[in-house]
């Protein structure tokens, strides 16, 4: 991107905050689990739960580029888009490109499974467990914990692919996606829709997330 003048907002601040917080949290969650710092793993895991839940709700009531329905529609142009990519005829997308939309669904699905299984996980001593583990037997909780561990491997593979893809865009396709994910803006396209956070939608989402978090923590 050259020094641009007209800057179009493509990512609202909640999307950007969500993204960079999860980038920070994933390594911390891995590390706290590996070191057996389960108090912190639970706290950070619950933070992650809140973030992911928010993002899922925001995919329904949020700004246009955050919404899932337009992304699903865009998947229809995936073959054409990929042909353009291979021919290096790619142009900027307002919001997630068809390929980007696939990544969003895969990453959010893996994150949701990771958080969801974590809530029910039980460790081998029966000492440490997620807040919803009280609803399942020890054996089931152990099986869920094994799945929690397995899904983490899948998540790591997806994240690696994600970072490689962003790097390919940057270096092979000369399209810097990271800057817009930080500043929210890109200078080389016209807006399809305004990306303005609706305060009522934001408040409603935050209330639902807070209530869910409260319910999960007090499930015992």
């Amino acid at each position, binding site marked *: 991107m050259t020094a641009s003048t007209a800057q179009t907002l493509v990512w609202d601040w909640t999307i950007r905050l969500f993204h960079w917080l999860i980038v920070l949290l994933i390594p911390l969650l*891995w590390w706290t689990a*590996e070191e057996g710092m389960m108090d912190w793993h639970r706290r950070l895991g619950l933070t992650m739960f809140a973030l992911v839940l928010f993002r899922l709700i925001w995919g329904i009531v949020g700004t246009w580029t955050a919404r899932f329905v337009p992304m699903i529609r865009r998947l229809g142009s995936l073959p054409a888009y990929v042909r353009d990519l291979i021919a290096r005829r790619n142009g900027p997308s307002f919001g997630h490109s068809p390929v980007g939309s696939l990544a969003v669904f895969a990453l959010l699905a893996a994150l949701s499974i990771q958080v969801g299984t974590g809530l029910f996980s*039980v460790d*081998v*001593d*029966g*000492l440490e*467990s997620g*807040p919803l*583990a*009280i609803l399942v*037997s*020890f*054996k089931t*909780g*152990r*099986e869920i914990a*094994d*799945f929690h*561990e*397995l899904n*983490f*491997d*899948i998540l*790591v*593979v997806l994240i*690696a692919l994600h970072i490689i893809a962003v790097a390919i865009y940057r270096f092979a396709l000369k399209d810097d996606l990271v800057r817009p994910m930080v500043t929210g803006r890109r200078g080389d396209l016209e807006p399809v829709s305004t990306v303005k956070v609706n305060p009522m939608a934001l408040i409603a989402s935050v209330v639902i997330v807070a209530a869910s978090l409260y319910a999960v923590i*007090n499930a*015992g």
Partner: protein
Amino acid sequence: MKILKVKIAVPAIAAVMMLTACGDNGGSEAAPEASSEAAGAQLPNGMTIKEQIEARQSQLEKVGDAFKAISDQLKAGTPDIAIIQEAAAVVPEATQGMADWFPEGSGPESGIDTDALPAIWENMPDFQEKVGNMQEAAANLNTVAQGGDMAAIGEAFKTTGGTCKACHDDYRLDD
């Protein structure tokens, strides 16, 4: 201690799914090819090695069940002391005789799915000491639980849990 590299090494989802098919016991990683004669061999106590391994796993499963039951109650807003007392009584009973559950030959070299590490037989005195520590802590937990003092139960539970963890860290395959 596993490192990230190991995790990344998992090549594809398909491969990952195959791993699940092996069940929840990561022991197969460490187990060499099954040698069925060894597995069927009689131990001095009359059990085969396979029976011995399965018996100890099933006992430990009971202990895990009991521990989770206590942990659930300790987390609950209004703990049910009767459930805690019942579970606390299970632990000393289920781990009685644990010192004899790990005869020579009942490690991964038996070819049977087990998370017991060979280190057990290289450090038997230390392993036995850890069995003793746990049994002592579990007996104390039971006594305290029957007393009914929640704060004391919480403490005794933590102490006992620490003795489980101390042994698993050194002698149980981390799956």
